[in-house]
Every structure is written in C-alpha cells, then in structure tokens.
C-alpha cells in the first residue's frame, strides 16, 4: 500500500468509530428504554420547582408523619415536610451530583490511561502499581474516609469520588490503547508522518473512548449509590436539603408505622439505576457491535 492509501485507510477507520446508522440506535430496545427512563427523571429534576406541590424543606410541625392523602400523596415526614416534594427535589440533588461527579475522573483517568498505554515505559509501570494500590481500598471505605477528611458536603463528594474512580478509567483506556496502537490504521498514521500527539488524540482517541463512555454509565450508577449511601450514613449532603439517601435514613426510624417513607426513595434509586444500566447496555451494543455477546 502506498502512503496516501494508508492515510485514507486511517481516515476511514476514524470515521468508523461514529455510530453506523441512526437506525441501529432507535432499534435498540435497551437504549430506547434507558433514554426514556433517564430522560423522564432528568425532566422531573429540572422541572422540580414547577412539579413539586410543596416547598421540600418547609416544616409543618402540626402535620407530622401524616399518612398518604389527597393533600400529601406520599404523606409527610417527621417534620411535616411533604415526602413527594422532597422526592422530586431529591432528583435534582442526586442526579446532578451523580452526573457531575463522573466528569473529573473520566477526564483524568482517560488522559493518564491513554498516555501510559501509548508511551509505555516507566510511566506505565508506575501507573499500574498505583492502580493496584488504589484497587486495594474498597470504594465505600475510601469515599467515606475522604469525605470525613474534607468535611461533608457536595464539594467533598466530588473530590472523594474523583480520587477513587479515575483509576478504573485509566485501567480501561490503557488496555484499549495497548490494543489500538498495534492496529494498521495507527501504524499508517504514524508512517504518514503524523505526530504522536495527533495520532493519540485524533486516531486512537475516538476508537478507545467508547469503552470509557460505556463504563461511565455504570460509574454514574456507582456514584449515585455512593451519594445515597453517604446521605444514609449522615455523611453526605447536609440536612435539610432533600436527598434520597437521607430520606431513607429519616424513614427507617418509622418503618413499623410508615413503611413507605424508607421504601419509596429506594425504589426511585432503583428506577434511576435501571435506566442508566439500560442506557449503558444499549450504548455498548451500538458503539461496539463486534463485541456483542
């Protein structure tokens, strides 16, 4: 093959990373279901000020622990706050933090993993040892300790999650780059005289990024679990802000009389995770058709 043909091959391969056809997207049932569920939840979160019938933090001490009724569809909690309104506003807090928390580790992990995989050498060796060390700390243990160190609150949650989960992205992207850099299109691009940086960003990048994006979907689920768990333990978003985990914690006290208080926020978490998992499964089918099992 002459050099121009090789370059053409390289270009074609780069395009191939884009979705084949739109049809493949909407014919994928998991993907469609995931988009609908996640879309609906995001809509609820965005429209919380309109949808929520009451102020989520307003107390009504004369009407505490009310059973579900027409005025309060899901009843009220121990401070007389409307449970439905807290659930709706909670979507805003939990989803926002869940989505935002993914971004920092995604970027850091992808860059570090790509550089390590592409250039190899001592940087790669050291990185893999660091990855081994980080993997020794269970996710929750590390997040809880870091939130303790930096103090509770949204900012600490971002730092803690970033510190723990960049490792997974680095490991995934490094593995993908190790495979990709052996491929003909990369060799062709290098022979064509393109710089390492350009090959890494324009040629390898688009082809390895899909794995990181697919992982990000399950990572958002993990992050939402972490936020909810921290909230439950009393280490997350400070009260009285509505947050699903702290709502479950509030409800556990009254589980014998008001079972729905602890149950329903958990169900909402299950629905949100289900939507994100379906979205991730669907994306992995569409982005990696050759890997489908």
């Amino acid at each position: 093959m002459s050099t121009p043909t090789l370059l053409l091959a390289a270009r074609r391969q780069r395009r191939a990373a884009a979705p084949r056809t739109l049809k493949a997207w909407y014919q994928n049932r998991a993907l469609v279901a995931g988009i609908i569920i996640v879309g609906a939840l995001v809509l609820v979160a965005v429209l919380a000020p309109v949808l929520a019938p009451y102020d989520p933090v307003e107390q009504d001490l004369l009407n505490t622990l009310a059973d579900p009724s027409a005025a309060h569809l899901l009843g009220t909690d121990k401070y007389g706050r409307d449970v439905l309104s807290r659930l709706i506003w909670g979507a805003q807090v939990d989803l926002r933090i869940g989505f935002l928390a993914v971004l920092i580790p995604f970027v850091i992990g992808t860059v570090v993993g790509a550089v390590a995989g592409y250039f190899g050498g001592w940087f790669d060796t050291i990185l893999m040892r660091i990855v081994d060390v980080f993997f020794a700390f269970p996710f929750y243990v590390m997040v809880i300790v870091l939130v303790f160190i930096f103090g509770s609150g949204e900012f600490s949650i971002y730092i803690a999650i970033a510190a723990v989960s960049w490792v997974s992205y680095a490991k995934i992207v490094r593995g993908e780059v190790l495979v990709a850099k052996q491929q003909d299109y990369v060799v062709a691009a290098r022979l064509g005289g393109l710089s390492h940086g350009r090959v890494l960003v324009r040629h390898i990048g688009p082809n390895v990024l899909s794995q990181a994006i697919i992982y990000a979907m399950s990572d958002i689920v993990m992050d939402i679990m972490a936020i909810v768990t921290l909230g439950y333990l009393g280490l997350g978003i400070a009260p009285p802000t509505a947050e699903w985990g702290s709502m479950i914690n509030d409800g556990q006290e009254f589980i014998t009389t008001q079972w729905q208080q602890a149950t329903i926020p958990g169900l909402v978490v299950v629905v949100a995770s289900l939507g994100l998992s379906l979205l991730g499964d669907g994306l992995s089918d569409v982005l990696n058709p050759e890997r489908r099992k």
Partner: protein
Amino acid sequence: MLHRLRFIPARLIQSIPVAFGVTLIVFFMAHLLPGNAALALLGQRATAESVAALTTQLGLDRPLPEQYLIFLAQLFQGNLGTSLTYQVPVSDLLVQAVPVTLALLLYALILSLFISIPLAALAAFRPGGSRDLGVRGFTLVGQGMPQFWVGIMLLLIFAVRFRLFPVGGYGTTQLDHLYFLFLPALTLAISMSPTIIRSLRSSMINVLESEYVGTAKSKGSYGISLFRGHVLRNAAIPTVSVIGVNLGFLVGGSLVIERVFALPGLGSLMINSIFSRDFPTVQGVTLFVALFVVVIGILTDVVYTMLDPRVDMSKAVRA
C-alpha cells in the same frame, strides 16, 4: 497438585510494593486533614495543651519521612496507635470487630453462591428463553438497589412484618450468630449475586456449547449429573476471579450493612469513629481493610490455580 502452588512465594513478594503503597496512602490521610491535624481532630475539645499532646502523640512535629518510618516501625509491632475515644490500642478494637465482619463476609459469600448457581444455570440452559430473561431482569434490577436499602427492606419484611428474625444485634452464642447474621448476610448476598450470575451465566453458555459436554450428553449424561460433573466446575473458573475482584466491593458494602443491622463489626467501628473524630481508629480500620483486600487477591489466585490445572501462575507472576 502442590507443585502448582510454587508461585505463592513469588506472588507474595509481588504484593509487597502494593502493601507499602497502602500504608503510604493511609499514612498521608492524616496530612490531608485541613490545617493543623491535631486541631482539626480535637475540634471543640481543643485546648493548647491537648493540641500539643495530640501533635506529639501523632508525631506531627517531626519531619515527614521520619513520621512515616515511625508509623511503619510501629505497624510492624502491631501498634496502630491509641483510640482517641476509648483510650485503648486500636489493635484491641480491631481484634474485637474483625471476627464479626469476617463471619458476615463468609456467610454472605456462601449465601450468594446458593442464589447465583441455580439462577445462572436456569438462565444458561436456554439462553434467550423466558427464564433467561427473568434472571437477566433480576440482575439488572439487583445491580441498581442500594445495599443498605435492601437491608432495610429485608428488615421490613422478615423482622417487622413476619417477626422471623431480629431487627439487629449479634447475639451471644455461635448459634445465635448464625441466626442474627442471616439477614445482613442475605442483604450482601443479594447485592453481590447479580455480578456472579452474569459471569457464571456467560461461562456456562460457553461450556454447554463445548464438545466435551456434547460427548457427555451423547453418553447419556443429563440434568443435574451433567451439570455437576461437567458444567459447574469448568464454568466456575472465570467466576472465581470475578468473585475475587468483587470481594473488595463486598467488604466495603459489609461496612455499611453493619450500620443497618447494628452489628459490632469493622463498619460500625469505622462509622462511629468518624462521628467521634477518632482518627487513629479510622486509619486502623482503613489499613486493615485494604491489606485484607490484598490478601484476598492472593487467595483468589490460589483457588484459581487449584480449580484449573491449565493455569500456570508461576509464569504470570514472573511476567
């Protein structure tokens, strides 16, 4: 059999840098505390003397490398410092809490196999069938359930509604422990099983398509005996490493679950210490848990080798 375990010494040596890395991270945690660590830890209890005393106790007045060497030297003597709350060695607290958490983990692992193996088999025997779809639905939903919430739901059903199990605590006798730990262990098993089922299901499908299963079938083997004799052991091999990796996750989950069921294990110790700002204890639990995960990694490799005669770990270790 034994000669295949020759890789163990090399594998142990390979884990040493990781173990040192773990101690380094745990050591630096104290230095991540904003401002003066001693002041931050004492909070409202702080007086000039108590800050000075704690600074000396934590060794914060020495240069960093020296602090780390002291930390390591003490660690090798089993000294993890003194709990600020209980004024006893942290190692004493660990000795009390570790058996509870270990029992919970082992119990959960056994229960999760009881859940996963039948469900994976049910799904794998006819992929794409209605049972398969049902099992896959369970794994999808199961992955999305917060562990502590599963615990609360089990409490709601089995302890509050039907009064079959206690709402919390650990009991006093061995038999008590089995009974008291059942719901917490089941909680962990439920949250662990989706991952195991997914892995077992896909490896069972591979095994069922293999020629040796075809041969066994043509010789008249079917049902349970086919499954036990030919499918399970071969399908279990990849799953062992999946379980090994996820045990770390299980350890983290068990800490949270102990909170739900008021079990006096590592998790309760850690969370209580966090609320009382007892940093040496938090550090001790974190260190123990991380080193425990490193050990699990080694054990996973051992089990893997024992199950699969084709695996030669001595090569993997040398590489």
